[in-house]
């Protein structure tokens, strides 16, 4: 069984060194857990950005040379069709370009395969059916079953990448695939400017309305506006607490 790992070329936000995102490296670990033959796939000007993945458990990377602002989806679809894997794994958001996370969905549509997003774990039955555990917020997991071949994007909360091994990275090889003849330009990127961190909103703040409305909304929620029980019977207090927790949904009914 073959597994293709899509690698994006990006730089680490902290150091600026070429580093694929953690989700892609976790995808490598998940593919190793499936027992598949791993093939990495990178499309872009240089393979340098994807090379660190070789030390994290990937043996070979296929590099499709393309210009910086080309649209890569057709080339990747062609290469995946040529490789014919049972599963394509990708990180849920790439780094380096638009970072919209749309490419795996475009690939799934072009290939005609189903796509399951935000996987924290993937396993495979003997009859070829994959069980994907999706990572939802607050530690919830959703288990879905899907027959292959399929595209799976990996959530950052998947098991951490395999530790970097320098010897393995040296032994890994990068195969350059012949560049596609036509390289259509990607859609023009709208205005870019340096990042300005924006603050999160205050709890209880609302927009619109008069200043008095906004103040009322903000202070009403801050004060709790709640019920008070003075020196009740412990039994009664416990019942009230449990009823309140059930009402707000903290305890399942």
């Amino acid at each position, binding site marked *: 069984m073959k597994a293709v790992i899509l690698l994006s070329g990006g*730089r680490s936000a902290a150091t600026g060194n070429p580093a694929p995102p953690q989700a892609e490296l976790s995808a490598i670990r998940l593919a190793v857990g499936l027992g598949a033959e791993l093939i990495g796939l990178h499309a872009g000007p240089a393979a340098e950005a994807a090379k660190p993945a070789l030390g994290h458990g990937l043996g070979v990377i296929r590099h499709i040379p393309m210009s910086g602002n080309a649209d890569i989806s057709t080339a990747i679809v062609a290469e995946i069709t040529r490789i014919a894997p049972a599963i394509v794994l990708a990180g849920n958001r790439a780094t*380096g370009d638009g970072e919209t996370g749309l490419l795996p969905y475009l690939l799934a549509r072009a290939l005609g395969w189903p796509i399951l997003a935000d996987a924290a774990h993937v396993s495979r039955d003997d009859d070829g059916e994959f069980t994907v555990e999706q990572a939802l917020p607050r530690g919830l997991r959703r288990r879905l079953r899907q027959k292959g071949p399929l595209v799976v994007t990996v959530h950052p909360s998947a098991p951490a990448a395999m530790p970097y091994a320098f010897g393995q990275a040296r032994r890994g090889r990068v195969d350059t695939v012949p560049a596609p003849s036509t390289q259509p330009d990607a859609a023009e990127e709208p205005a*870019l400017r340096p990042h300005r961190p924006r603050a999160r909103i205050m709890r209880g703040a609302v927009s619109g309305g008069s200043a008095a409305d906004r103040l009322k909304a903000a202070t009403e929620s801050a004060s709790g506006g709640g019920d008070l029980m003075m020196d009740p019977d412990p039994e009664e*207090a416990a019942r*009230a*607490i449990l009823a309140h927790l059930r009402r707000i949904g903290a305890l399942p009914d």
Partner: protein
Amino acid sequence: MTRLRKDPRLERARLQVPGTLRLRYDRRGAAAPVRPRADPRAEKLSQIVATAPRLRLDRGQRTAPLSSASQPMPLEAEAPRVVTVENPDFWVLVLADPGDGRLSAVDRQLLGAARILAGKAGGVIFAGEGPPADAGSAGADRLIALPQTPHPEDRAMLALAIADAILPRHILTAETADGGDLARRLAVARRQALFPNVEQISGRGVVRSIPGRGLDQSGDAAPIMTIVPDMILPHGADVREARPMDSGSLPPSAREAELVPPQPGSLPLGEAGFVVSAGNGVRDFDLFRQVAALLGATPGASRVVCDAGFMPRAAQVGASGTVLAADCYFALGIAGAPQHLQGIAGCEHVVAVNTDLHAAMIERAGLAIVADAQPVMAALKRLLEAEQQA
């Protein structure tokens, strides 16, 4: 303000005789303006807080002096005016994440963003499970009730059916696991532009950040957008109608998905959804841990307890401990120092048990119980164990 202040210039202007060459004032018939006299008995009556077990007065607020003749009119809360929209120029469709049928904080932010996009001419449709009753006050003009669909592909089919029926100008979802997936499936299926991770939205356009490159990208509002949670304000200007809307026949959901809840102890404190905390008022920590396990909550503690060694430092909640992202916080025997309250600033619901009525935690709590934590914990344990056995 207790005594109405006279404006002498206004009074003088009232007495002025108009239309004369020089200023003339008519001071003949005016009776001396009656200064409202304070009625001490009525004032005391309005300050009574409790009569049993003893008379208690709140003299902190001097109410306006009442004359004994007139009774104070009961102030009715004015019914908020509901804004209705019949045929807007375009629709903005909001697709809510699957939840428990109530309006979550992110749903409100979605409606706030949708209202900004709709502006004056557009209408907002809220499509979600439930549907929630207070969607109108959050800014929804129409409501579509969605059936529960566990599988993401089925949800996408449902959303596509609704979008084809309504043909909205913009579709909004949240940038969460479910919402982000749905938005991308829609964008790819209908070949429409996607502008994800919107952090700032206004009439002029939308802004997102590209963290890997340290850049911001601004553009016009795209047909499909996702908003980052907790970056856009909810709507508070007016109350909308939230009329239920018929969406036609929706495709049935066929596929199953199994939801696996997390083990109560496996989540780190910073990510847990329900936290139970012990403070100085708790003496029996074995009982506390049992109660936390029965409630299915993650145990936390205040600084005093961690310093004394009864709970590990990792369980400390507060500014120098862990800042919680929980929805619900249950504080047992915690007074509520400011640094501790900083740690629970993000918690929506707080339940507190403390012997001190004037503790800051009691004021912060939505349900406050002034009692000793020990018997309350014992009663909780008894009740939960009885329920589990039944």
